[in-house]
């Protein structure tokens, strides 16, 4: 494992929303080991710094994509990168979604905002092998229609049910309005044989996991991806602690059975 970033060239830049972009990346020379959906890279923006970003696309060619929302100096610099620019990547780090354990089961994917990005490669793997899974549902929530990541792509996924809802509609919005958890009523699944994958803001993760387990999905079958400040990604900087967990090492993807109690403690 390399301690310094490897240069990756931006082959395409896709604007997702006003503040979010997806960078498609290919190694300039040497490639990092393969990423599994759910894992993350430390992405270096020259002269600004490094941030952890989950992979939003993994390709057999070694190509990757990262979807970044401009919320700070580094992420704004990355969002401004254009095709031909070079960024640095370290990784892969952390735990994966663990889609293998969902084989033969109904699959529910619940995303809030940019939380769809880390789930995207998982969704693509699931819908590419329909014989391997039961009914697949994708539930997406966003603050407003303009904040919806993957708006063109979502309707094309061949799922048993796809629902999209927004908190605040605009005049052109004819879809659902409200919490993403309200879409669960329409998703076809048999709780006892369902695996769920959830990513989004922490309140949304808590509400979704509680609804899913309340309907009978086993807590360990609800896998959530969490975010904390990270500086090193190798378990040495101490920033990503959540109680007993180091989220760069024990996460970012963890079972709800492991984190339910931890996330119920304020400011842990």
């Amino acid at each position: 494992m390399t301690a310094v970033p490897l240069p990756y060239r931006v082959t395409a830049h896709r604007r997702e929303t006003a503040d979010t972009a997806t960078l498609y990346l290919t190694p300039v020379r040497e490639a990092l080991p393969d990423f599994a959906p759910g894992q993350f890279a430390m992405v270096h923006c020259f002269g600004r710094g490094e941030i952890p970003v989950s992979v939003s696309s993994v390709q057999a060619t070694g190509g990757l994509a990262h979807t970044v929302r401009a919320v700070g100096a580094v992420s704004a610099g990355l969002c401004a990168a254009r095709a031909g620019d070079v960024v640095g990547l370290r990784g892969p780090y952390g735990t994966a979604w663990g889609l293998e354990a969902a084989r033969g089961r109904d699959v529910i994917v619940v995303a809030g905002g940019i939380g769809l990005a880390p789930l995207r490669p998982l969704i693509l793997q699931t819908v590419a092998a329909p014989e391997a899974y039961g009914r697949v549902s994708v539930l997406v929530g966003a603050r407003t229609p303009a904040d919806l990541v993957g708006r063109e792509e979502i309707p094309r996924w061949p799922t048993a049910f796809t629902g999209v809802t927004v908190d605040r509609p605009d005049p052109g919005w004819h879809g659902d309005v409200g919490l993403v958890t309200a879409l669960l009523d329409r998703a076809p699944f048999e709780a006892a044989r369902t695996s769920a994958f959830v990513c989004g803001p922490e309140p949304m993760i808590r509400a979704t996991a509680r609804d899913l387990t309340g309907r009978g999905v086993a807590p360990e079958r609800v896998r959530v991806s969490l975010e904390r400040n990270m500086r090193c990604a190798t378990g040495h900087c101490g920033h990503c602690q959540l109680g007993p967990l180091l989220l760069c090492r024990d996460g970012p993807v963890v079972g709800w059975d492991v984190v339910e109690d931890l996330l119920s403690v304020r400011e842990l």
Partner: protein
Amino acid sequence: MTTTAPAAVLDRAGLDTLVTTLVAQGRTVIGPTVRDGAVVLAELSRGDQLPYGWGVELDAGRYRLVPRADGAAFAHSAGPQSWKNWLHPAHERLWSADRAPDGTPAYTTEPLDPPQYAFLGVRPCDLRAIAIQDRVLTGGAYEDSRYGARRRRALLIAVECTEPGGTCFCVSAGGGPAAGPGYDLALTEVLDGDGHRFLVRVGSEDGARLLEQVPHRAADPATEATARASVEAAAGRMGRALPEVDIRELLAASPDAERWNDVASRCLTCANCTMVCPTCFCTTTEEVTDLTGDHTERWQRWDSCFDLDFSHLHGGGPVRASARSRYRQWLTHKLSTWYDQFGSSGCVGCGRCIAWCPAGIDITEEVRAMDAERPVSHAGGTGEQ
């Protein structure tokens, strides 16, 4: 590593020769010396720089040098620094990058050529602290290669503790004034009618080779007995103690304890405890560029969980905004979740955090208060195991 080399005795001149021999071998010798009103750790070139004739007086928020009539060199307990200042320095460059005219950065790892340290006067508590940092920084899936390189080259000369301070509690933290494993040589200072001398035990091949180059004599039963007796006596003279309860379980069950509010009203969140703690390892990173904009460097520096920015999430602010949550994070991590993360407690009982806290917060007293409150917090239900 154990060796069968017999124990030996050095006199004061022998200890002086030990220091000059290490220097002559090209080692950077770090040991205790008196400076700025404290026994600090600093680079030594001669044995007479050791704090002969100085002791310390320690209490919560208090550290004073006191002269000693007996001329002892190692009759002081932990000072403001620890060995992490050298093994895990406060500020270091990780890598740099230069951007070619076509915009492609070339990343360069910082070269690894650390000094060959010899640490003289490593207390048994600090020997354990080094082993704990070894597990954190080199024992996981990834090794901190800079720490690892410095550590593997370092020679550790422990000095057993015969004069515990008022803030010491190593025995109740699972250690003791006797040196545990990990040393190359272990000294025990002996001062009696037969003179000022140091019992030497050998812990490694490197230690045995070093001892061969220093004038010494075979250990006599009287010196060994006196050394043993003063270390055993020290175990009973600790200034403080952690309560004898399952502290790991106690703190895991106490996230909602009322005591956190009490300690938060006294804690200045100044981070002193984390800076002086010999096991606190947290760091942050900084990007530093030059004026051309084509050269950038990645620096690592110590960070503290007491800093508001430590848990900052862009778009969400700090996870731990209150002083209460930050003190809780430090204490709970140190004494409880450290087990989950790294397989042991993070506390060795050196007492530095008590002495150097400007508010005089005492970790042993906080744990005792937490234990006293326990039935109440259980009734409230915490949801944690």
